[in-house]
């Protein structure tokens, strides 16, 4: 049995507390994420997928329950502190990169994810060759735009860069929040392939939210269906292998 990296125990999240709009989004999530898990997460709008990521990432507090990282309680650790072991790629290409900084500068920022930054010279030139080589692995011409401000990149290149930045310094957990949803089908497929290759090759532990049931079945080695703030199904690799999109679809019904 592989090691548990992250555990959620009976995690509940309530929004608009104390008002008439008070809603419980996560209704007691119990989830153990093991080393090497590549979990795809599906669920309807409002099922709590993004909230789950925000609670894991620390942007939203868990109102009840505990979150453990390698056995250590991190329920009240800040978003910034959690980045030492956790990396995210957002759905919106604008959120993942600094638009006025160059591709290389963005990558340099990401090499220090979760670390204290000091008053020492940044060493951009010394890292250039390594960054360019990494950018070339994305197969979308990013390596030719290393000194371009990221604001001038296409959405696909920006998301590829965000993904690279998230994995530049190996995270214990990688959160992918529909990171290809804003891209055209071809670009999206390209990035998904690159994502899958990197995660499988480096044995990264990752959670990927997707709205495409085929993608949820094609990628990853574990599948979770969220419904109404609860985990409706948690399928391992073998069960996932046998599942068809039609069967998966039935989880969304009733």
């Amino acid at each position, binding site marked *: 049995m592989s090691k548990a990296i992250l555990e959620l125990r009976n995690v509940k999240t309530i929004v608009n507390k104390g008002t008439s709009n008070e809603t419980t989004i996560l209704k007691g999530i119990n989830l153990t994420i093991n080393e090497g898990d590549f979990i795809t997460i599906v669920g309807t709008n409002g099922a709590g997928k993004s909230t789950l990521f925000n609670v894991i990432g620390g942007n939203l507090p868990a109102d009840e329950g505990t979150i453990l990282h390698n056995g250590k309680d991190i329920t009240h650790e800040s978003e910034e502190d959690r980045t030492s072991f956790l990396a995210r790629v957002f759905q919106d290409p604008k959120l993942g990169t600094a638009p006025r900084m160059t591709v290389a500068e963005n990558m340099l920022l990401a090499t220090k994810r979760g670390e204290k930054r000091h008053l020492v010279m*940044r060493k951009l030139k010394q890292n250039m060759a390594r960054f360019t080589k990494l950018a070339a692995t994305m197969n979308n011409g990013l390596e030719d735009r290393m000194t371009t401000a990221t604001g001038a990149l296409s959405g696909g290149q920006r998301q590829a860069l965000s993904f690279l930045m998230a994995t530049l310094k190996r995270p214990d957990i990688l959160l992918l929040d529909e990171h290809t949803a804003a891209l055209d089908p071809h670009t999206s497929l390209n990035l998904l392939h690159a994502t899958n290759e990197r995660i499988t090759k480096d044995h990264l532990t990752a959670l990927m939210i997707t709205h495409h049931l085929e993608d949820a079945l094609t990628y990853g080695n574990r599948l979770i269906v969220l419904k109404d703030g609860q985990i409706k199904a948690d399928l391992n690799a073998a069960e996932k292998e046998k599942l068809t999109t039609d069967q998966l679809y039935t989880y969304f019904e009733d």
Partner: protein
Amino acid sequence: MNLIVSSIGQGLLWALLGLGLYLTFRILDFCDMTVEGTFPLGAATAAAAIAHGMNPLLATLLAIVVGMIAGLITGLLYTKGKIPSLLAGILTMTAIYSVNLRIMGKSNVSLLGHNTLFSGDFMRSLPQYFDTVTMGMIVIAVVTILMMLFLATDYGQAFIATGDNTTMAKSLGIHTDKMINMGLMVSNGMVGLCGALVAQSNGYADVNMGIGTIVIALASIIIGEVAFGELTLNQRLVAVTLGSIIYRLILLAVLQLGFSANDLNLISSIVLAICMMIPQFEKVVNIRKPILKGVRPHE
């Protein structure tokens, strides 16, 4: 000729204000009104300290520290108090007005007969107005080089990222609130220094000398950007100083047309308004974003 030298000297001294505001307005994307109070605060602190017999260099350093405290207060109001950036600055700025009166004990303090940074033997040996030019060049060179070095460090890059994309900065573990507080402190420290130098150059500090300073600072930044176009970050810092000098020369030209010194704030605003409208036509600089951000609450 004398008038032109004087304008260049003023441009150099006041460029500090533009450089200070550049850190917040351009890099942090934070419209900081505090400077309108920090500038006379620096002047009042240095002038009152010198009038009480303090060494002018120590008095100037004291003005920097006091300016940094003012910046920290605005920063805390914004990051911890969740007050919108524009309002946080206005609150501090308004409060400083009373503080300045307390520091000086009256509405102005004269430095006549006291030793200042401009009264050393070397400064006295220079031709008229060249003392300001010399002082301005030394201070601007040191400050600009320090800023260039700072922005090229790991810490400086994290600072730039905070202003450029706060969400991303946080997701990389950068403590953005600390960065904003630090930026406001450094920026207002520079503005305090500027106030202290201008007071010593003029020979007095006045409680009303802060009126219009934010417009002057913005004018330096915007004129530099409009005049020189696409530049690297380091070049932009130099452009601020050049913009500040150009602004003084524009004022000089306008005053030569027969306007009085009482019209200065009107002219300053018109000059800035015109400069800010040029990019509207050219679509070179997007100025709307930081200003809109200033009236929205902190996320």
